[in-house]
């Protein structure tokens, strides 16, 4: 099937220029994007297999040293579908996050909260036949960042998603239900429509928790849908 993808609704995503998130000011294109019709170059994209992944890649509690990380033990799970509701199977998800104290294991993070010797903060997995995925981690802490003099990020997990083609490529962040920093977070607030931001807030999912072990949050992801071509609109060749 070589059907084209639905156009991206740019009013739903954050715009490039969001002055309250100061770094965007010098890093935002000011001219309009050139809208192009999908060709083979856009409907194709990298694909990944289980051969590239290790057994603990989706277990951030254990995958750094094999000893458990400190923090609220948390399952994050959900389903990747497209805008027509169909599951996206074999999608690669990569996640990264701060530790329970809000500190990243990265040369450029100078926050005073300590590193956890047993927490790295990266994970990855592929969705199954029905689009489901699961990670295990510790809940990340909130952290301050340089923007205004007292700007804070609410707790979040970064997600990178590869769908079926380049058109579906997406990087976003997952938040946790009930976070009091939501309305203050300049990055979350780059999203204009509160209903769109709601989509990044994972609700507590008690039924998916592991009794006496871990809480769970559910984060479903929707990638761009594609036309079902009743009328042919050939992408390659005449």
């Amino acid at each position, binding site marked *: 099937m*070589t059907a084209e993808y639905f*156009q991206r*609704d*740019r009013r*739903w*995503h*954050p715009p*490039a220029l*969001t002055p309250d*998130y100061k*770094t*965007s*000011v*010098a*890093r*935002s*294109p*000011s*001219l309009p*994007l*050139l809208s*192009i*019709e999908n*060709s*083979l*170059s856009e*409907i*194709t994209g*990298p*694909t*990944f297999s289980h051969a*590239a992944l*290790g057994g603990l890649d989706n277990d951030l509690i254990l995958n*750094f040293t094999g000893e458990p990380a400190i923090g609220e033990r948390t399952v994050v799970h959900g389903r990747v579908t497209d*805008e*027509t509701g169909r599951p996206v199977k074999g999608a690669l998800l*990569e996640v*990264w996050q701060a530790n329970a104290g809000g500190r990243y*294991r*990265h*040369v*450029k993070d100078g926050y005073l909260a300590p590193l956890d010797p047993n927490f*790295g*903060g*990266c994970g990855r997995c592929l969705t199954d036949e029905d689009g489901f995925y699961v990670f295990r981690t510790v809940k990340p802490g909130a952290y301050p960042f340089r923007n205004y003099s007292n700007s804070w990020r609410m707790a979040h997990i*970064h997600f*990178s998603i590869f769908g*079926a083609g380049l058109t579906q*490529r*997406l*990087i976003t962040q997952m938040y946790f239900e009930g976070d009091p920093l939501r309305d203050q977070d300049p*990055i979350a607030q*780059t*999203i204009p429509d509160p209903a769109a*931001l709601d*989509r990044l807030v994972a609700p507590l999912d008690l039924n998916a928790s592991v009794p006496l072990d871990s809480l769970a949050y559910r984060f479903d992801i*929707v*990638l761009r849908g594609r036309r079902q071509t009743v009328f042919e609109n*050939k992408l*390659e060749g005449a």
Partner: protein
Amino acid sequence: MPLEYPKETPAQTAGPFVHIGAMPRIAGFTCFDVELGQQIAGPDVPGERIVIEGQILDGTGTPCRDTMVEVWQADDQGRYAHPEDPRGAEVADGFTGFGRAHTDFDTGLFRFETIKPGIVPGRHGRDQAPHVSFWIVARGINIGLHTRMYFPEDNTSTDPVLSMIEQPHRRDTLIAERTADGQYRFDIRLQGDRETVFLDV
């Protein structure tokens, strides 16, 4: 009631620590066996070997040193390593077409070693000049930026994407500079006089 489709999950910036999740070795991690995107074309893949280098410059002209750059390209016959390319099964073993690099923490340079792609079939039988698709994320970039790099030695006059760019001088922002045999320089300007043409794909 209007017809409702589920809407796409909104994007957020990759932030400054994207390397942890996407290029863990660059962030100093050794816990994963395979670093993804480190081989676009293995040593046995036919084609002209090339190197692409460049910087991502912000609106003040300063190189961004916390960017992740991804590339996606066809092989030397214009075939993508993907099940939806009708010729996708014919690509050589070791050709992925996918590369990932970071802009160096000091110099701001990204670098890819690959092969030169071939002409790719376009819509309505109209060929596309050889090109490499780029996708850029970083702190301060709220949604990933798509663009393309073309080669200065090729005939790009009938390329369907380049010919859609209204201002002739802006087409040049998508054409790399050849600095030596097999060496290309491709700088991407996020803003300013020579702002790169970014694509809504």
